[in-house]
């Protein structure tokens, strides 16, 4: 079974309207249901309006993993919340680009670039 650790990073400033979740590991059909359930609950309970997925240590996703991101994106959008990706590994970026995921979910090179954008 693929292993994926999800860590919510501590806020630098308490008033920030965003949360950062760091992904470590892989997402495939063996763990996609569990991950989807955890993230769906997390996004429905979060009070902040922006969620950033830091994918620095995220090594693999298949199409079902991509489906999970799409589903979360639309669920959040219907609640006026926003999802972003940052520091996507090249092999994962290839998958995202191939299916066109980056055309709907904003993707940034670094965590700083997305957070500075949100702080503005």
């Amino acid at each position, binding site marked *: 079974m693929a292993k994926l650790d999800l860590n919510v990073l501590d806020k630098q400033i308490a008033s920030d309207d965003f949360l950062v979740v760091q992904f470590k590991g892989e997402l495939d059909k063996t763990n996609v249901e569990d991950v989807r359930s955890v993230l769906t609950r997390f996004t429905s309970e979060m009070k902040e309006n922006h969620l950033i997925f830091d994918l620095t240590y995220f090594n693999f996703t298949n199409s079902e993993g991509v489906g999970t991101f799409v589903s979360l994106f639309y669920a959040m959008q219907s609640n006026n919340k926003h999802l972003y990706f940052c520091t996507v590994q090249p092999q994962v970026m290839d998958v995202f680009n*191939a299916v066109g995921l980056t055309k709907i979910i904003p993707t940034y090179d670094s965590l700083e670039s997305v957070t500075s954008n949100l702080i503005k």
Partner: protein
Amino acid sequence: MLYSTSRYRSFKKIILLSLLFFLPVVVSLNFLELDTIYLNVLLGFAAIATFFVLFKIFIKPLDKVTKEIAALVASKPYSRLNIFSKDEFGLIAFFFNDITKNIEKISYMLKEGSRMSEELSIASSIQQSVLPKSIPKIPFLDTVAKTRSAEEIGGDSFAITPHNDNFFIYIGDVTGHGAPAGLVMMITNTLFEVLLPKAKKTKDLAASINKLLKPRVNSTMFMTTVFFRFDPKEKRMFYTGCGHEHILVYRADEGVTEVITTGGIALAMAEDIDKIVEEKEIKLKPNDVVVLYSDGITEAINDKQELFGLERLTACVTKYGHLGDSLKIFESISKDVTEFVGETIQNDDMTLICMRLTDLDFKSDREQTMLVTNW
């Protein structure tokens, strides 16, 4: 529920009750010095009482248990045993009731499994019926296409349909596999056929299919696709990518394979893809070969858990592209994939399409039927 009883409980009962009935007889015999008539009457009562007790606590429940077990063994209707005593018969009755309950549960599950298997088989044949049975003869385009599902129902799909002097071709792969993927594949295939008469370009077709598909599928599902339009008069080929795997083009003059990213966005991922997708042309010369595939091929694994991968597939196309016949090219690639995976069971659907531009109006008598390959 746990059931507990001490061993030989019913026998202990019999001995205890027998003693209780025969004790007055023994006492009378030794201490009261009753005459023979009274003694015989007492013995008679004791014997009747003992028989009654034996019948009540031993023979009757034993008969009941035997009758129901015999019915169960003979596959005849049986009923639950209503023996609740805390002796061996109570224990046997508890065991019988418990085991028959489990047998009924298993029997129901087997029936359900058989029903579902029958339904899957029907669904599978319906799905097979929407895939082309044979490839239409396309002038100047020697084409072979085959698909194989990992399960009864697959998520891979393709179609080759003539329309307005052009041939429209698509290959698609739905997220995941099995029944949910198969249903999305069926919807897309139907939309392709229904909307094709209104389409002039592959881009229009992709956008209109997406518009109807998106609200009808679960948000976790999408379908990567690439649509082609081949114009036999002009011998020109156009495509619109919707997030599918690469297009491999064997360039016959140079003996190399070009890897083209399809681009665009997968169907059902966004509500309106009109501004995201676009129709492009692939310039082809005679004997150039266009190879399309689903990720079941590049993600085919061997016993070392290695992927077949895009690199190996591209090398295959370069190696066999010169064979000059799409069927030979197809079979050679298929053989390499088969040898690579060996006995390893594959979990994903596989589809492979080879299209070779020819100088001739392709009129071969070869029947290009849909054969399931040995992947």
